[in-house]
């Protein structure tokens, strides 16, 4: 898949970082403002998809990227499961129990494990959407060769 015109490439260079940072913001502030792991992960994946569409998969050397994103996705969902399992060791020993101190509601570092769940669910969603997109784009090229 080849890239697009110079205008699209330049605008993408300016915008992709901002979109990526907005996704990170949505994930980190998931327990304070609307949004969370799913929305932020989709936005982060959108930033990468924008880059890939604008610059083309050949310019970014994306041949082995598929297994990379799929590994990231597997590790992220494994960490979510481990975080939930660790609740069996602390407190009232219930799966998915919120075992960390809650802090003051409204602060960035508060709500116990919920921000951690948000972060890893966000990584998982971003990697999953990116994996599906790359599979649709790259495997077609490899099979047509």
């Amino acid at each position, binding site marked *: 898949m080849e890239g697009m015109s110079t205008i699209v490439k330049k605008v993408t260079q300016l915008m992709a970082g901002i979109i990526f940072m907005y996704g990170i913001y949505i994930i980190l502030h998931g327990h304070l*403002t609307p949004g*969370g792991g799913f929305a932020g992960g989709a936005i982060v994946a*959108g930033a990468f998809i924008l880059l890939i569409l604008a610059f083309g998969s050949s310019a970014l050397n994306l041949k082995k990227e598929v297994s990379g994103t799929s590994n990231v996705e597997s590790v992220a969902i494994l960490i979510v499961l481990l975080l939930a399992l660790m609740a069996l060791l602390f407190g009232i020993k219930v799966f998915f129990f919120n075992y960390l101190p809650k802090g003051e509601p409204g602060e960035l570092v508060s709500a116990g494990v919920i921000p951690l769940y948000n972060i890893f669910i966000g990584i998982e969603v971003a990697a999953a959407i990116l994996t599906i*997109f790359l599979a649709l784009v790259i*495997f077609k090229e490899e099979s047509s060769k």
Partner: protein
Amino acid sequence: MELTISIILGFMIIGAIYALHAKDLLSAVVAMGIVGYGLVICFLLLKAPDLAIVQIVVETITLVIMVAVVLDSTRDEIAVTFDRRSIINMVTGLIVFAALFYFFILAIGNLDPLGSHTLRMSESYVNGAVEKTGSVNLVTGVLFDFRAYDTLGEAVILYTAALGVLTLLRMKGKK
């Protein structure tokens, strides 16, 4: 507000019907975009910004992927032939539609007004969520504390979907 939502829903129905009958597949994909973005405006009017963010991002990504697929493969729809069998199908469809519509009319009289809840559980979710979870955003509190199993299920569904796409699209087997 119900009038606004009704107008948007009407546009969404028109877009969906047009997407079924468009000759050009690219315009069908764009007409499906009307459905998705209309849903975003409906979510915003019904005061659900969490859902609106997810819907607008997922809709955009889906449109991009669908447009890429249409541009890569073909833009023409398969020609439909009209024979006796399709008449039987249409009559069956109309009968099922009439039956479903009748029961829908019957059921809608027993519904509560929009926005009111009847379950005892939702009362305790809404009232004591901040003290129980520490999360100011009630939706995240429900998603990751009260209903964390649901969230785990959704994440596993996405994981399985990515695995399925990788498996189905792998043309060359691993050596």
